[in-house]
């Protein structure tokens, strides 16, 4: 279980510019084996929140507890999947997948067989010795996913992993991610700016607003699991439509509101 309490973080301004409050008073509990999606406009601090969870950056206020222990840095129970994929261009698919294992001292045949298993799981058998630049974006992100899953994390942190992919590839990978998660359950925190993606994948959707980045609402997605076998029916269902349109109403309100506030501020300073 992850408990985030009163998390706040600001980035200092440069050369007299005021700093940006990236996160303010964020309270959130992530249940074990839950698939939690975080949805918000760009610049709402959702990626910052994830980087805090990963222990990659520090924060100013509040605390993050992972199974009641405070998070102070990266840890072996967490693994991350990056939007930019972050594969090592000089290493083969196999070597990229074994990266995390090697860092944790797993080596030799043990490491190889574990990686092999994951490569099969993400459907890349036969590509073990391929280099990243020989793969399509979708295949590259499968490698990224395999690399994260290889260390058997209790918490999988995904930062808009399918954001850079084309529509067809994204749908395919969403389906496969669901399949994988349905068979080997872990806690997933999944950042996205797509409402459909948030609802399709998540047990709950965390809605964030920008400036300062804070949590506005947490929406339950009561649609049945497993969903991977019939994504189209899920997305076509009245329930799905209902939830996404609710989310849209909220998001739209803030966007308009932000616009209005921005205009008011501009008028006030004139």
């Amino acid at each position, binding site marked *: 279980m992850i408990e985030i309490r009163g998390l706040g973080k600001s980035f200092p301004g440069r050369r007299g510019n005021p700093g940006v409050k990236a996160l303010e008073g964020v309270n959130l509990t992530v249940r074990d084996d839950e698939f939690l999606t975080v949805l918000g406009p760009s610049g709402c601090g959702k990626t910052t929140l994830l980087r805090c969870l990963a222990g990659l950056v520090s924060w100013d206020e509040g605390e993050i507890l992972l199974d009641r222990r405070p998070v102070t840095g*990266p840890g072996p129970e967490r693994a991350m999947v990056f939007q930019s994929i972050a594969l*090592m261009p*000089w290493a083969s698919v196999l070597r990229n997948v074994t990266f995390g294992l090697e860092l944790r001292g797993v080596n030799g045949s043990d490491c190889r067989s574990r990686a092999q298993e994951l490569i099969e799981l993400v459907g890349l058998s036969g590509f073990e010795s391929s280099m990243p630049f020989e793969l399509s974006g979708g295949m590259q992100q499968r490698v990224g996913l395999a690399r994260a899953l290889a260390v058997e994390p209790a918490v999988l942190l995904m930062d808009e992993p399918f954001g850079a992919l084309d529509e067809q590839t994204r749908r395919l990978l969403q389906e496969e991610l669901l399949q994988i998660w349905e068979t080997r359950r872990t806690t997933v925190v999944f950042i996205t700016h797509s409402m459909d993606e948030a609802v399709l994948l998540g047990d709950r959707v965390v809605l964030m607003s920008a400036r300062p980045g804070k949590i506005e609402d947490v929406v339950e997605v009561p649609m049945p699991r497993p969903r991977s076998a019939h994504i189209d029916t899920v997305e076509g269902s009245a329930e799905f439509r209902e939830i996404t349109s609710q989310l849209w109403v909220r998001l739209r309100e803030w966007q308009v509101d932000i616009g209005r506030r921005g205009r008011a501020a501009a008028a006030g300073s004139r």
Partner: protein
Amino acid sequence: MSSAASPQPIAMGNGRPRAGRSLVARILDSKAFLRLLTLAVIAAIWQVYAVMVGGLLIPTFDGTVFAFVELLLDGKFWRAVWVSNQAMLIGFAITVILGIPIGLFMGRYRPAEAFTDVYINILLVTPMAALIPLIIMAIGFGLNARVLLVILFAIPMVIVNSRAGVRQVDPTLIEMAQSFGATERSIWWRILLPGSMPAVMTGIRIGLSRSLTAMVVIELLLIAVGLGGLIINFRGAFQPESLYAVVIFVVFEALLLIMVARWLERRLVPWGREGVLATD
């Protein structure tokens, strides 16, 4: 994109022969043939010019070829080659051993850079030949002076490219490694070193050609030994054929070294792009 419809694989490069053409056509089309042809044209123009305009200081092409062969058979010549290259090899080795770590370190740690940046810039902008008198006054005419000049010529290129190599490593790769719990040490070994290899290799290649320049320049200007010494002697003795032959040898050596460096680069960093920071 009319060629996209073609079911045949598109041949790489222009010189690749297509099946079913005559041998003559294939030879006429090949790269090696074109190169030889250019060379022949240059040789012909040279020969005609030397014979018709001529003069004491312009040798004929065939005379130069003979002189070249003679040179290659002469033990004294190879001693001169050794004397020159000794300075270059030692200087280049020191350049690589010192330059790469300095550059890498500067790329990663800002304070180190702030401290050394100004000296690197001085080395980059100063015409190195101007330093030769200073070096000789300070450490004399020996091998040391020549080695030092080679280092001063070559090391800025190696440092600057290595520094750029570390800088251009994708920061999300570093973050990725950190997320898996990598220490600074493993980040160096697993991310920064392989990631900066393409630029480091570029630096080595440019540094190598600068080493060769330094080797000849100092011998021509002040310390008349080795190949530069030969050039000066032949000039003094009015032997333009031999003088040209030495120059041609230097050109061949440069080409050979650069080919070796490029070959190494392709073998070691097949994923890298060329010319990350081609300053020179």
